[in-house]
């Protein structure tokens, strides 16, 4: 705690008035100096008697006067004021500390729900480190399949290796947070402390289950208090609910994506000659996108759109879809409807509306001679421009009952030739970059 500021106190008008009045009424002259001898009140004269002014039983200055009897009253008044001011300061410091915690908690609660599990763990660590003394903060969650604790995120220096046996396991199964200020002599963590001296450990739990633990630890011995534990647990419990929500959301999303893949596969089974086509188009599309620096959201849309790009073929009759000889104009018109039919089907699913442009426009051409809307250049959704390259490349390299697939190099040459006419040159460049990185090849692909 800071040393009491006597000088500041004696600059206050109300205090000066009080001393003036008291000494005036008593008819004495006093002066007050700090420990260094600097005059803070009054003027020096012949003042042989002196008494100390103390804060927290430490001398912070001296009061001088003619005789000690007379200055005793002034001294005890000043000591009383200093005493109450000291208490006020202590209260203010504690209030500020709580205010800081509360502000942080507001901030934490407001933002924590927007993140995925890893981000929540990082966010939690950042906030814990700001308020609680720790050399390492680690978030460990139990793996949903194996049940083993896995390190999700940590900060600072490398922490003690924690396993299911020892303190982590104890906290996990009891569901109760613990402070261990002397790890070396505590049997609960004797096995695993490494260089850690003191730690605070809280379970990450929701109503139903414990998801994992969070540990803050120090290398030098440190005295964690009940206050630290309280704040730590409050943050962790907020994070726990957010993590549980994030996990649920992630598993829901996974189920959704699996459903989409199943749907695409079901459609594909109608056309026995194109086995594995959607999977390959998805792989090629993702490989191209890696070199285009698209956002995470666009990447997600691309994955779904590339899987579902031919979903509209459900509306094309079998005899046209499976026809192995040349299509008549009329039949070709029917094939073309799979783009708009795809749009119609997807428009029923709220979560898939975002991929409609990618699906509907994957047969548009960069020069505006494609279908169904004759869109041109950048009017065509980027996702559709990517799928167009991936789709055409796969169609060229796949065998059909009436023709053999083109050799890899010939197909590459075709793609190159169509850059700027059928395809967006930027996407073609990204395609060749992927080819160069061996991300697009004819091996390792499902047939």
């Amino acid at each position, binding site marked *: 705690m800071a040393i009491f500021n006597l000088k500041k106190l004696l600059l206050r008008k109300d205090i000066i008035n009080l001393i003036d009045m008291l000494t005036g009424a008593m008819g004495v002259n006093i002066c007050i100096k700090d420990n260094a001898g600097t005059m803070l009140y009054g003027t020096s004269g012949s003042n042989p008697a002196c008494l100390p002014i103390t804060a927290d039983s430490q001398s912070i200055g001296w009061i001088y006067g003619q005789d000690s009897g007379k200055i005793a009253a002034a001294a005890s008044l000043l000591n009383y004021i200093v005493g109450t001011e000291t208490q006020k300061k202590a209260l*203010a410091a504690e209030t500020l500390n709580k205010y800081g915690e509360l*502000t942080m908690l507001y901030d934490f609660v407001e933002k924590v729900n927007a993140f995925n599990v890893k981000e929540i763990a990082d966010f939690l660590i950042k906030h814990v480190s700001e308020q609680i003394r720790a050399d390492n903060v680690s978030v460990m969650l139990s793996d949903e399949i194996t049940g083993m604790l896995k390190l999700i995120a940590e900060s600072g220096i490398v922490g003690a290796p924690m396993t299911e046996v020892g303190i982590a396991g104890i906290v996990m199964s009891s569901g109760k947070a613990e402070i261990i200020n002397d790890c070396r002599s505590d049997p609960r963590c004797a096995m695993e402390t490494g260089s850690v001296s003191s730690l605070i450990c809280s379970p990450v739990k929701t109503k139903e289950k414990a998801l994992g633990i969070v540990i803050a630890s120090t290398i030098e011995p440190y005295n964690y208090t009940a206050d630290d534990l309280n704040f730590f647990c409050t943050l962790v419990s907020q994070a726990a609910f957010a993590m549980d929500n994030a996990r649920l959301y992630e598993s829901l999303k996974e189920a959704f994506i699996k459903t989409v893949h199943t749907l695409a596969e079901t459609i594909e089974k109608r056309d026995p000659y194109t086995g594995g086509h959607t999977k390959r188009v998805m792989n090629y599309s993702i490989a191209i996108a890696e070199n285009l620096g698209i956002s995470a959201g666009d990447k997600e849309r691309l994955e779904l759109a590339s899987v579902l790009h031919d979903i509209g073929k459900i509306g094309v009759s079998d005899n046209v879809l499976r026809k192995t000889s040349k299509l008549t104009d009329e039949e070709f018109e029917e094939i073309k409807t799979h783009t708009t039919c795809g749009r119609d089907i997807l428009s029923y699913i709220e979560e898939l509306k975002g991929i409609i442009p990618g699906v509907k426009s994957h047969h548009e051409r960069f020069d505006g001679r494609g279908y169904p809307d004759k869109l041109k250049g950048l009017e065509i959704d980027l996702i559709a421009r990517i799928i167009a390259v991936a789709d055409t490349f796969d169609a060229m390299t796949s065998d059909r009952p009436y023709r053999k697939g083109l050799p890899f190099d010939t197909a590459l040459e075709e793609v190159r030739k169509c850059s700027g006419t059928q395809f967006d040159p930027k996407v073609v460049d990204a395609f060749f970059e992927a080819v160069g990185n061996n991300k697009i090849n004819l091996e390792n692909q499902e047939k």
Partner: protein
Amino acid sequence: MPAILIADDEQHIRMLIEQTLESLEDEGVDILTAQNGAEALEIIKEKRPELVFLDVMMPKMNGFDVCNAVKNELGMKEVYIIMLTAKGQEFDKEKGAESGCDLYITKPFSPKELKNKAREILGL
């Protein structure tokens, strides 16, 4: 000696900010307080603090008016003024810009950030 003025009509906010900045006193910074806008303006004129925390809603002259008087009427552009505004109460950015305030911070504030900001502005 550099000085900071804290102007807020709520005593507990003055106390909290004062406590937040207490350690700067050891580095020679003077911390002044004012309970309303008029008092704040007087102190700014007299003591010329480097940094002022100015509550928006204050009796006898609100924060915008004080800021406007300091920055535009008195031309004391060098005084760095941070407006304090309550959370949920939308800060009028247009008025803020017109009055010439340098920054605004919402209450409840983060003590750590507030102190760092003060240190940065005073060049400590």
